[in-house]
């Protein structure tokens, strides 16, 4: 076994060291952000916080969590993320499966998809379509316009292609149709990629805030990411007659930091559950045989 060679062992330990250093470099800024979020605002304004809170307090979190709209926006965000991810993955899987077959019209369809990745009409026309369909103030305004994720679809198609054709042919002989072979052969064999792409879709839905801002005409119906934006952008900046109180809110580093952590936390909690699927990939590959 290669693993016992001296050279490999040497490689393995320096690799471990390298990965540790990189991990630390990645986590430090977040630790800093967390420390700032728990610091007093004067310490944060003076930039005197490094990796441990200075003048510990929870003010920044209270301001967000005590807001009566917080819970509602969290619920809306979960709804939006779950519904949006489900819808998006359904479309991704069906479209990717189709595009991974060879059939008449395939090339047209794939270019039809790719084209939309590159060209878009911009904010105003999209807004007009969404309002024209009376989707404003519904969950649909947040999930339908982005329901087809072309990048995910093309990736999924790639993963489907890697699955040996023989499996499907065998199924076809048994009389299974396209849908059956998709659900009983392709999907079970694609758990790692499904997990990965679902994660992408989830993160996207969880983080997007601009669509909430323009498609919800009632501030009480903002999803979490949009709501958090109102915390840090805040204020009635129509009145650019500069108001120090507002400025303080705007540039409040503690609140901004807390906002990042509150926004990212739910995704970070979900992550390890999905991680199972791609970290243990190697054994899954073995199972496949």
């Amino acid at each position: 076994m290669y693993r016992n060679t001296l050279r490999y062992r040497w490689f393995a330990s320096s690799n471990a060291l390298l990965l540790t250093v990189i991990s630390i470099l990645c986590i430090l800024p977040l630790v800093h952000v967390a420390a700032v979020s728990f610091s007093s605002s004067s310490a944060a304004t003076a930039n005197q916080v490094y990796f441990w809170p200075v003048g510990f307090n929870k003010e920044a979190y209270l301001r967000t969590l005590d807001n009566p709209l917080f819970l509602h926006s969290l619920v809306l965000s979960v709804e939006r993320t779950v519904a949006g991810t489900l819808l998006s993955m359904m479309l991704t899987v069906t479209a990717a499966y189709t595009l991974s077959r060879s059939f008449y019209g395939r090339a047209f369809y794939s270019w039809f998809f790719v084209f939309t990745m590159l060209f878009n009409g911009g904010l105003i026309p999209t807004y007009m379509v969404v309002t024209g369909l009376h989707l404003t103030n519904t969950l649909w305004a947040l999930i339908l316009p982005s329901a087809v994720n072309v990048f995910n679809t093309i990736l999924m198609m790639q993963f489907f292609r890697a699955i040996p054709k023989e499996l499907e042919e065998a199924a076809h002989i048994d009389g299974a149709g396209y849908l059956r072979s998709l659900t009983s052969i392709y999907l079970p064999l694609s758990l790692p990629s499904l997990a990965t792409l679902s994660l992408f879709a989830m993160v996207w839905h969880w983080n997007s805030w601009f669509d909430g801002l323009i498609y919800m005409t009632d501030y009480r119906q903002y999803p979490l990411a949009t709501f958090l934006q109102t915390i840090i952008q805040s204020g009635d900046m129509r009145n650019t007659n500069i108001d120090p109180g507002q400025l303080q809110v705007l540039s409040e580093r503690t609140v901004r930091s807390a906002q990042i952590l509150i926004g990212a936390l739910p995704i970070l909690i979900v992550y390890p559950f999905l991680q199972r699927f791609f970290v243990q990939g190697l054994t899954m590959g073995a199972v496949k045989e």
Partner: protein
Amino acid sequence: MEWKKGRIRFIRQLPLHLLILPSIICLLIFNYAPMAGLLMAFQDYKPRLGILHSPWAGLAHFRYMFSYPDSVQVIYNTLLIASLKIVANTVVPIVFALLLNEVRTVVFKRFVQTFVYLPHFLSWVILGGILTDVLGNKGIVNNLLSFTGADPIFFLGDGTWFRITVIISDVWKEFGFSTIIYLAAMSGINMALYEAAEIDGAGRFKQTLHVTLPAMVPVILVVSTLALGNILNAGFDQIFNLYNPLVYREGDIIDTFVYRVGLMGGSFSFATAVGLFKSAVSFVLIVVSYRLAYRFGNYRIF
């Protein structure tokens, strides 16, 4: 005869068409319909008149874009920064995924993976502040450099260093997130291939070279080709939060330029024209790489 064959084929393949239909409908409504807005690029768009009645301007906005004294520099900056980002953001995650793949301790692997994926969630507003500190004249990086006797480097105020900073910090922020795709791709590799290679006497490096990498090629090709769609997107949020007049020459990109034109009362039409130009360039590049992959590798990227 022919049409009959076509019809039979169509009926046989009908389920496939039906499976993709919902996606097609969504794209038609939410992507293709708004593309009517692209007409603004050829108009002198006035809100009062709308897209249907605004006067035509032909290619005036495009001509203006290229007659602009700075446009060559700005397009060059964008291309340079974006393409270096594309290369780095492809290579680094692949190498990292390969290195991570060598880790046997599952817990360690999971921790590393979680940590490197965290920076994705930080915004450039926050990171801009952190970078200004860390890279400042009295920042930690320059303090470390001073031990080696080097002069302090003005990372954000010197053009070349600005570009390097922009690329490295972007890779740092995103590589962990991108690694996930490659890990998913690796999970599909058949273990039997490794065993066969081992029997042939291949060491781990050779196994990686001859088994792991080839298996990842399809995904790498797709991801990097689709990344070409960003060949003129060098990252607005990042540059906008970091740049300053000292690095306009080397750091100004198309999007920041369009933003500033907008501040000065520039029109929707101009912004749309620039956007259309960017899309068209990306589109051509993607078509070309698709063709090349097909001709030389007999491989369909999508």
